[in-house]
């Protein structure tokens, strides 16, 4: 009898230790997705691309530093409360980072990250002020914040028609995401001498923008800038075409210029512009690798024609920044089995310059160089235009107006910190 008990105990012990071993021997990258809900069409493509990239690394290179990457998904439906629940459910599993995939969720997680010591990476979304690494040690928004992007768009407009004395309409999704650049516009409009009309589109009215475009007709702006997402984009472009607003004066941000936004409209959307930092197309070696190792082997839910689309390539780029952070963290820690705190340091050491991008198969994407103080990398954007069939890149990289944005970001970061006693900062000097 006693023997049996000892035997059982030993068996149980090995079982428990193998279970806990299997936990430790992989790199857990939590991945908040929205494959259901109002933005599912966009969310599914992004989620697939991130999973595909890590599957490709697992297949081609055997993971990162010899450890397989587990991009474990949690479904949020783009709902902030669900996002927080998802975040909580990863506790105690050694997550290396969090990618909330929603500005609303990001804003709620920012406070938790320093206490849980897991970095938050929001590529091209999230809180702009998080660019300030000294105030936000645990948040990263490579390659550029919304505010940097807005100044790049403004300097593009300036180069096209001049900005002084012009009237801009700012059409935005009424939520954390769309409202994010408003403080910047309010600051810049007197400074740079342009007028701005702010036109919100409520979440529920995404498909019904008649009154918004009536306002635009009445106001007669010289340019319309859009911060839209999901079905709001296609509706806006359709309305613009219907009300005969010149589409080459209508420019979306990088979340408002994907294939899904214009493909159904085809030639009707011809001339519409949007900013971007991740070129589309299938010729990049990394896209080819994903097709070869993942898509053609049937290891994914990605449809074969998806790789190369704007959102797909962008999420591949998101994944490569995440992977680079893990690689840097492993170098720094001297072991493959890293923690969230290591990955945070890895993020600060990211150096995706042109040479490294070429090496990874991302030639032509915007370079990202991080540091302790700079968590946005001050990446540049370019403008692309829909020709009725495909997106054409029409400009070189346009750098943000650093001298204008940086002081504003510092100010915003200070304001964020001000009403939070005990907020954890870091010293970069």
């Amino acid at each position, binding site marked *: 009898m006693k023997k049996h008990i000892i035997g059982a105990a030993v068996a149980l012990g090995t079982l428990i230790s193998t279970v806990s071993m299997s936990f430790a021997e992989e790199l857990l990258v939590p991945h908040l*997705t929205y*494959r*259901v809900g109002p933005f599912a069409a966009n969310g599914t493509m992004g989620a697939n691309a991130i999973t595909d990239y890590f599957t490709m690394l697992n297949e081609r290179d055997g993971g990162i530093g010899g450890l397989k990457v587990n991009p*474990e*998904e*949690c*479904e949020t*439906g783009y*709902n*902030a*409360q669900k996002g*927080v*629940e998802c975040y*909580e*459910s990863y*506790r*105690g*599993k050694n997550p290396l980072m969090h990618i909330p995939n929603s500005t*609303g969720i990001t*804003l*709620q997680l920012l*406070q*938790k990250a*320093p*206490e*849980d010591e897991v970095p938050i990476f929001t590529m091209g979304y999230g*809180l702009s*002020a998080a660019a300030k690494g000294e105030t936000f040690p645990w948040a990263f928004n490579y390659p550029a914040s919304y505010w940097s992007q807005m100044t790049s768009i403004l300097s593009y407009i300036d180069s096209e028609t001049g900005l002084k004395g012009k009237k801009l309409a700012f059409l935005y999704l*009424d*939520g*954390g995401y769309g*409202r*994010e650049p408003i*403080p910047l516009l309010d600051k810049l409009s007197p400074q740079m001498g342009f007028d701005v009309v702010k036109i919100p589109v409520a979440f529920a009215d995404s498909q019904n923008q008649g009154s918004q475009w009536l306002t635009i007709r009445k106001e007669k702006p010289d340019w319309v800038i859009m911060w839209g997402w999901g079905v709001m984009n296609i509706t806006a472009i359709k309305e613009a075409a219907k009300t005969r607003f010149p589409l080459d004066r209508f420019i979306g941000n990088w979340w408002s210029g994907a294939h899904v936004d214009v493909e159904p409209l085809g030639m009707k959307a011809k001339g519409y512009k949007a900013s971007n930092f991740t070129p589309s197309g299938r010729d990049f070696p990394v896209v080819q690798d994903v097709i070869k190792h993942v898509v053609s082997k049937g290891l994914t839910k990605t449809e074969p024609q998806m790789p190369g689309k704007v959102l797909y390539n962008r999420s591949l780029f998101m994944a490569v920044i995440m992977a680079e952070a893990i690689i840097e963290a492993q170098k720094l820690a001297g072991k493959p089995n890293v923690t969230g705190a290591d990955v945070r340091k890895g993020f600060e050491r990211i150096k995706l310059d042109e040479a490294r991008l070429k090496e990874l198969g991302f030639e032509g994407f915007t370079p990202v160089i991080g540091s302790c103080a700079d968590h946005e990398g001050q990446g540049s954007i370019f403008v692309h235009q829909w020709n009725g069939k495909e997106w054409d890149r029409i400009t070189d990289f346009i750098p943000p107006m650093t001298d204008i944005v940086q002081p504003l970001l510092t100010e*915003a970061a200070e304001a*964020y910190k001000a*009403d*939070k*006693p*005990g907020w954890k900062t870091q010293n970069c000097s």
Partner: protein
Amino acid sequence: MFYKETGQFKSKYKEELAAFPLFEDKIGIGILGVLTFLVIPLFGLPGLNYEFAMGAIMIPCMIFIIMTLGLNILLGFAGQISLGTGAFSGVGAYAFYKFITIFPDINIIIALVLSGLVSAVVGVIFGLPSLRIKGFYLMVATLAAQFFLTWAFIRVAWLYNYNASGAIEGPNKEMFGIIMIGPQSSGMTRYYFVLVTLIVLTWLASNVIRGRIGRSWMMIRDMDIAAELIGIRPLVAKLSAFAFSSFYIGIAGALMVFFWLGAAEAESFDINHSFLYLFMVIIGGLGSITGSYMGAIFVWVVPVLIKEIGKSAFGFDAFVMENFSTILLGAMIIIILILEPHGLARLWQITKQKLRLWPFPY
């Protein structure tokens, strides 16, 4: 067998009126007390990660029980239907946020009670139409409250202190030297705080319901004209039900944001949440405190467990499980309501009845 009333003699009215008159019930409650006060906070739930068990199951469950109790007072005991629960919980949450940011040294318990009172006042204001209208008409009036209040949560920037994010966030805040809320607080402290709040509020509710006020609510529910004829004032009865219910819901809303989520936007108080709480009340059983417990636990825990089991045991994708748990919950609601229209509370009562006679039913 399990419930043996024989031999349990009562010689005083007090014993007859006790909340748990049977010895077996007392044992059951004692076991439950040991579990919730000692075993669960120390060891968590079996097979689940401790933080997950606290943050995703235990704490939200208890908060939703308070929410359900509140709605059940209004709907189950006073018979006034409301679709504004989500918004009233938001009033409590925003009030709590304003109290702790305007008076940073305020005691959390005082802030919680005050925010409950603010919610009660708002509840009474939106309950005024109940004096004139009933049933579906009242439902529409409370629906107006729901939309107006969520609109206010987005548009009145003063409510969230002009935050760029538009969200209310819980700062770190101490009580008696322990960090109770905010990102630095531990799951265990928040658990105990919510547990004690739940017990106090349950005790209060059960006593109010058994007393004069509760009886006047039930009279209004059963037949308002008859109640009026024998001297119940509908104004006092209905508005006190709205006040009492909103007080509970407001406290639950404040707990939800600051002891569970940590931060929230207006969408945490939208109409979908009102429906969720309504489900909890109906599944649990109208007009029953035990039912409020069961309904909230069932509607909250079942989908969480389905998702976890589907993911870890069968390796399904997260979004598949998300859809599947919604479908399954919907199916279970329909099945339960067909089999037992009076909810889980009635089911529990039947079980108890059967256990009394087991193993020799007649």
